């Protein structure tokens, strides 16, 4: 390991309460410095530097998909093949890429230039297909684009191709500054009234700020919809330990690409939201845990944080008022489960992202065993408005019990997939209309990201998008990732791809999720291949019913509920794939 890398790791280690916590970041640093993979020697060195057993280092490295224990080509081509990508033609593109490169998935070209991987959701559902080359995204990919990209790469040129996704806003809050030139700079943010909410918050007591957030009715935008102010209220009153605020930016739920819209184009909104929230809960330090694939967005955040710190908006004397709060950005390394708050905390501590047993809940014992509040990007970004304009103004947006704006990410079979901000309670039809309308005949919609049960076209006709109505319709608003499917889509294929995703992402810790996801995958695979039996379908439903509610973290629910809905609502399509009686004898 080079001395500068070693020095950087030691510097990193010093920024955590325990050097061990720097493990994941250290591994990412080493991999980047050493040509894309982690050698045996570097793992041993990291182990020695941080005082972590080699077994733990190895276990952690092998957990995350972005960490490579084997060498990869100079350009690691990673194509998102999850459902939104599938709906946008990623399967054909993959075939094209294999042909153009002359290698299959998981292989490296003989010249060592290219490794091809098919990966899970990259958080670019509105701009699919998306190809990640090392740490750069190329969105809206087509076979022709790929050929051009390949020609560039072969000549050692990594082109700068910026993709501007579709977007629209009715609320002008979360996406208000989208489209403004240089929207990430502090000056523009301040010119647009930014950091006034923080000014105001610091004139109030932390309890008053918390009360405002409680009164606003702001519900967690990560998917669960739990009231944010109530969550803050779970912090122990008498603890002497430091309190941490963690911003969950591990946007990985297939169909979801909303948080990146805020972080990439209006990073100071999140930062101000965190500063206010940190003040309210008594935290001096906040972490943004961002999925590792969003490397350039993490860079944007880091620059914005540095700028804010420079301007005294963060640091040990915020706005000159003697209040301390700072933010650090930590990058994940490829693990869906780390979006679950306790797994996220484990990952932030540098470990495998295995969810923790609850209780204790993070508010009582979270990061480094200290009281911790984990909130989603969109949740925290709503806080400045609430403080500036008042809880009542926020409640005016949306419906009763479902206050405020929400960004909906629309992907799949619509004319203009993209991110659209509407008040909660907006009719689904209105959102689809904003996205240019359905292409073809609508067959089904998943409204809250892949973990929510699918709705048939019939079912969702009058649906309005808020937490309570979605629940009433037997689904969930979740993260607001809307995947639209027309009648060219075969639901069994979607179901198989869904369970493949969850089987791939299961942390493997608890029995029902680890064993059950694969059992379902095996059975659906048989069915889709035309080798299934009616018992397979019954067994899939039996497994889904039994797994639901009985896993260590919500991941078991995240696949058992949607699969149950797909098989239940479209059983005919599955049965049509079963061999006819006696058919196997004829083969």
């Amino acid at each position, binding site marked *: 390991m080079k001395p500068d890398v070693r020095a950087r790791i030691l510097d990193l280690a010093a920024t955590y309460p325990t050097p061990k916590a720097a493990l994941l970041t250290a591994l990412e640093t080493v991999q980047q410095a050493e040509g894309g993979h982690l050698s045996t020697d570097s793992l041993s060195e990291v182990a020695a530097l941080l005082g972590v057993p080699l077994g733990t280092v190895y*276990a952690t490295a*092998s957990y995350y998909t972005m960490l490579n224990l084997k060498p990869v080509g100079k350009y690691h081509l990673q194509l998102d093949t999850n459902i939104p990508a599938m709906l946008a033609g990623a399967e054909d593109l993959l075939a094209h890429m294999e042909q153009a490169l002359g290698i299959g998935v998981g292989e490296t070209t003989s010249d060592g230039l290219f490794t091809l991987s098919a990966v899970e959701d990259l958080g670019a559902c509105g701009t699919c297909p998306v190809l990640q080359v090392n740490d750069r995204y190329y969105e809206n990919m087509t076979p022709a684009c790929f050929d051009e990209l390949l020609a560039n790469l072969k000549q050692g040129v990594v082109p700068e191709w910026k993709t501007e996704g579709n977007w629209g806003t009715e609320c002008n809050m979360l996406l208000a500054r989208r489209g403004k030139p240089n929207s990430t700079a502090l000056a523009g943010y301040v010119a647009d009234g930014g950091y006034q909410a923080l000014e105001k918050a610091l004139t109030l007591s932390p309890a008053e700020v918390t009360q405002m957030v409680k009164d606003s009715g702001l519900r967690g935008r990560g998917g669960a919809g739990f009231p944010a102010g109530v969550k803050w209220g779970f912090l122990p009153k008498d603890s002497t330990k430091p309190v941490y605020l963690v911003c969950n930016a591990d946007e990985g739920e297939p169909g979801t690409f909303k948080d990146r819209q805020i972080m990439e184009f209006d990073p100071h909104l999140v930062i101000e939201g965190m500063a206010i929230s940190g003040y309210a809960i008594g935290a001096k330090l906040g972490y943004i845990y961002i999925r590792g694939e969003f490397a350039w967005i993490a860079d944007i955040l880091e620059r914005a944080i540095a700028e804010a710190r420079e301007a005294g908006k963060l640091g040990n004397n915020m706005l000159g008022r003697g209040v301390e709060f700072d933010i650090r950005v930590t990058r994940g390394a490829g693990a869906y489960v780390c979006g679950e708050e306790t797994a996220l905390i484990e990952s932030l501590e540098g470990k495998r992202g295995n969810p923790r047993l609850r209780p204790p809940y993070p508010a009582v014992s979270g990061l480094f065993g200290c009281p911790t509040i984990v909130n989603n990007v969109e949740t925290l970004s709503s806080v400045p408005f609430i403080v500036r304009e008042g809880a009542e103004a926020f409640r005016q947006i949306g419906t009763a019990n479902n206050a405020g704006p929400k960004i909906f990410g629309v992907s799949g079979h619509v004319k203009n997939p993209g991110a659209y901000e509407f008040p909660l309670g907006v009719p689904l039809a209105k959102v689809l209309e904003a996205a240019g309308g359905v292409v073809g005949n609508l067959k089904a919609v998943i409204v809250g990201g892949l973990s929510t049960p699918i709705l048939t076209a019939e079912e969702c006709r009058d649906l309005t998008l808020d937490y309570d109505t979605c629940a009433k319709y037997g689904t969930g608003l979740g993260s607001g990732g809307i995947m639209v499917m027309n009648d060219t889509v075969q639901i069994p294929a979607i179901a198989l791809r869904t369970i493949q995703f969850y089987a791939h992402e299961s942390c493997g810790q*608890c029995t029902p999720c*680890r064993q059950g996801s694969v*059992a379902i995958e*095996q059975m659906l695979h048989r069915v889709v291949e035309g080798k299934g039996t009616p018992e397979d379908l019954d067994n899939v439903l039996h497994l889904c019913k039994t797994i639901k509610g009985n896993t*260590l973290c919500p991941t078991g629910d995240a696949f058992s509920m949607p699969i149950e809905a797909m098989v239940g609502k479209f059983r005919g399509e599955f049965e049509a794939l079963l061999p006819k009686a006696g058919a196997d004898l004829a083969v």
Partner: protein
Amino acid sequence: MAPLPETEVKTITLTIDDQEVTVPAGTTVLEAARSVGIDIPTLCHDPRLEPFGACRLCLVEVEGGRAPMPSCALKAGEAMVVKTRTERIMRLRKFVIELLLSNHPLDCPVCEAAGDCRLQDYAYEYGVAVSPWGWTPHEYPTRDDHPNIARDPNRCILCGRCVRICRDVMGIGCWGFRSRGYDTIIDTPYNMPLQAVDCVSCGQCVSACPVGALNMKRSRFAARNWQTEKTITTCGYCAVGCEMEVQTFRGKVVRVKAPFSQGVNEGNLCVKGRFGIDYVNSDERLTAPLVRGEDGLLKPADWETALARVAEGLKKAKAGGGKAVGVIASTRCTNEENYLLQKLARTVLGTANIDSGARLNQAAALATLRPMLGYPAMTNSIADLDKADVLLVVGSNTTEEHPVLALRIVKALREGKTLIVVDPRCTALAKRASIHLPVKPGTDGALLKGMLRHIVDTGLADKDFVAQSTEGYDELVSSLDLTPEAAAGIAGVEAADLKSAAEAYAQAAAAGIVYSAGVTQQAKGAAIVRALVDLALLTGNIGRLGTGVNSLSGGANAQGACDMGCLPDFLPGFRALDDTDGVKAVEAAMGAKVADKKSGKTVDEMLQAVAAGEIKGLYVVGENLSTSQPDRDAVVSALQGVEFLVVQDLFFSETARYADVVLPACTIVERDGTFTNTERRVQRIRGALEPRGDARPDWMITRDVANALGAGWSYASAEDVFAEIGKVIPEYAGFSYERLEEQGLQWPCLSSEDAGTPVLYAEGFPGGKAVLAPVEYQEPSETASGEFPFLLTTGIEREHFGTGVRTRQATGLTGLVGGGRLEMSAADVAKLGLADGDTIKVTSRYGSIEPLVVVGDSVPEGLVFMPQHYAEAPAAWLFGGEADAVTGVPAMKLVAVRIEKA
């Protein structure tokens, strides 16, 4: 003495399956249910580990709760109503078993775990033959490259107990989960052999595995769990006193396990305990007495002949008076055996020349702890160590010497407690310590002076305690003639570290001291122990949980050997020979007169007395003097020169070669008795096998020798002897085999109502006040010089014990580490132009040996280390026999040597 008053424990009452259960607050629902006999199935739960909640087998329903909860992690709540066997729960349990069987090999007929496999048990109980949705086993390669541990990852159910016990309980971390999801496999990093990844071969991972994924390789296909007879007994190696379950089948020991529910070890064992017992099965065992014939050769004989010869030889030797006979006892022997041996010496042979290897660790306790505090023993309990906020470990490589006790220190570390290690070597604990003071060998006394002075100077002494409970403060203070800076300079440590160690120790709410052979085997060991007692007294760290001066004894029954009076100057119960009333009381209880009331000789003095012609007969039980003692030439010539030598042992040891009669003894699994461990806990050992051949239990041999000399003893069992011990030693008066049945009791235990004493001095000191003693420090006599440029220190390795008489016959141990080796820093190895593995010649002023050299990171430049166990290169031979003037312990920790390629 009464036990510590229990602190008020809050209780919780809940209802489980309509049964009201009251448990201490903090108990889990699982523990609460099991405490009243309600069984909840578990796979990932292990009482030694934190809850994991992953197998989902222990789910229960809680009234008012939304989803089932894992009972292993769920804390019992007041008025909680729990149902463990609802239709839903039973269905879920069956489902989890179905899921696990969907890829578990169904090879029970040849699986080592069959009959002792939780998955098999539950599949049977819940009637799951195979998963309804198919069976797709993994096809992982199996691994067989560790001498004791075999692995079949296909059978693994990913409960993670092996990962967690190695990482959390052992503090090592050989195992890890690799990959994730269904592809998760438990593996070593890069699939390396276990021994290449810091494995200490403890087999804790095997003990944690609920299925057949990790097996004890040596007992594969030996016997099913249900075929074996199981005997709970106490380990016979070190002084921790781990409880173990010995499984025997067809006259042989098959395997060793440890029950989770009881014993100081709570289910943990070290490599020796788990894999070190098959010396019992060795073909090298002595199975008949050997008598030296007129041709000078040792030949098998019957007991009658052998005993007659012993009686004749000893009678002849003592013709000139009892003082002409010496008796050497063993820490391997039980209290009963040691008691009888000293009784033989004092009342039949008429000599006070009785001593044992226990001296090495215990003499300092007798010379310091007893006069300063009251009792010559560890003040607190093993379970106390993790209650300390600060632990000061001096001269104890605990993870190697007392591996299972060290787990308490590892636990304390895991809980964020402060550990201070004083050791010239960077031991495993030193590596993890908050402060490591790498003291120059032999300068501990100076270092402690500096710490004491700093505590006094900074006003951190506990003045109230000192005033109320101690005397000698002024004398102590006036002896503190080294400033912290000067002390640090002598000891070769940073003054700042010395000061912060002193401050941390003095300021802790509860601070404990642990010391062991690294102190007591120094030339000035007793002086160091005095300073440690001063530290504790000066700061009031005594008589409470988590405090104390914890002297770790050496062999399994080192404490007991001393308690029983196998000492030249003390009778049973530490009654000094010049204490007339004490002697009378002992004589009355023994029913015999103590013939020799002058102090006898230590082991080394006896050997010297042989050379001087004063001792003519030696009776050596279980000690291997020719390897363990310094000044080898003198030892060998004494053994050769003594007129009559009886050796009683399990094997034909190096010492037995010189004997006139060799008496075959029984191993720990072939006899009954009691051991007293380091925390004063008296525990049972129990016979599981018949004696091998003509071998006899040591107590029986000693009885028979006494009777051959005309004593007329009528003890019919070890228990008979124990009953007499209770009459002789007041601290043992409350014990009986019946009372010791469960997990033993700690002395003092004065009556059958007394529950024993976990913490000494909780209610004050026996002499009213404790004594602060002045601290002496003298420069070590051994220093590196031009001719002998290296300092050599010695110590213990976890794989072996003593001189290896037993451990080097145990195939589970012999394959793990090499033989006689000297550890040297890479820099010194390079400087001498040596290579790792070279045979070298090590020469001191007193002797020379030829071990291999290995590069190691525990020693700084200029210091080398050798383990003490190896007859082919006994480190003891490098020492000149200098002994601590106070304790008579031969110095074995520091000698200057020259090293060259052999």
